[in-house]
């Protein structure tokens, strides 16, 4: 049983977050240890395992990039290894520029504004890649799946940039 089946959802990329969270609560309740207090130890063990699978499924389906990755896996797309190198020079040049932009934020005269501007820039580039990913995943053919897998790899760089930006924000304002 895959995660979509477990949650009784159609295997689409776009999921209703409210519905997802409702199903999650319901499923977790049904596997709660209290309900198995008088069950056999084997049933208790099964409930624990099921509960852990429900958790994994929820985390995967809830997080867009994890969900995309999971969808591509379900479709049997042969994805490059996590560690395999990205060689798209234009993309990487842009990544360098964005890293430099984040460096500049640290030394900006007005860090608040610089932080906001950088965040907007990252967001808009992430969103445009992400919208393309949504279209690719909806097409469900080999070429689109391959393109989606490449987009997913690129989106991970933006995820990393976002983490970096959050770290800079923490440093600047010592939260």
């Amino acid at each position, binding site marked *: 049983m895959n995660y979509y089946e477990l949650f009784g959802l159609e295997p689409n990329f776009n999921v209703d977050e409210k519905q997802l969270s409702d199903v999650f609560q319901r499923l977790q309740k049904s596997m709660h240890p209290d309900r198995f207090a008088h069950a056999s130890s084997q049933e208790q063990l099964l409930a624990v395992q099921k509960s852990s699978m429900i958790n994994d499924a929820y985390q995967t389906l809830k997080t867009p990039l994890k969900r995309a990755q999971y969808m591509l896996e379900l479709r049997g797309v042969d994805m490059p290894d*996590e*560690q395999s*190198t*990205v*060689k798209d*020079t234009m*993309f*990487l*040049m842009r*990544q*360098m520029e964005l*890293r430099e932009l984040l460096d500049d934020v640290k030394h900006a005269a007005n860090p608040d504004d610089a932080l906001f501007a950088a965040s907007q820039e990252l967001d808009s580039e992430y969103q445009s890649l992400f919208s393309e990913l949504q279209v690719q995943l909806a097409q469900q053919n080999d070429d689109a799946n391959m393109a989606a897998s490449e987009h997913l*790899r*690129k989106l*991970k*760089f933006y*995820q*990393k*940039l976002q*983490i*970096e930006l959050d770290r800079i924000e923490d440093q600047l304002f010592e939260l």
Partner: protein
Amino acid sequence: MAYSEKVIDHYENPRNVGSMDKNDPQVATGMVGAPACGDVMKLQLKITDEGIIEDAKFKTYGCGSAIASSSLVTEWVKGKSIEEAAEIKNTDISEELALPPVKIHCSILAEDAIKAAIEDYQAKQDTQKG
């Protein structure tokens, strides 16, 4: 996780950090990135007409191991021919720096950066010849 002394040395005193003019016909640029950690590495080689690497510069955004791997590579390739540089393996880098298994991909990135730079050089040579 503890970094080895060599990693720390390269991280604190990185060799050959910087950029060269990527439009210079003698300069080859290799750009590579690793999605797993978001690291981005730029390696530039200045190559003589005889095919000898006379200078190397790098710029890397990433963890200590990624910076150390690229710094080490710039030291190693200087004075080498393109063919010799192409033979540098990620295992040579990871052994020299005593990288732990989770950081092996940093050395792979550095090896791929050399390869990407050499490809760029060859592409430039081809266009020059017309």
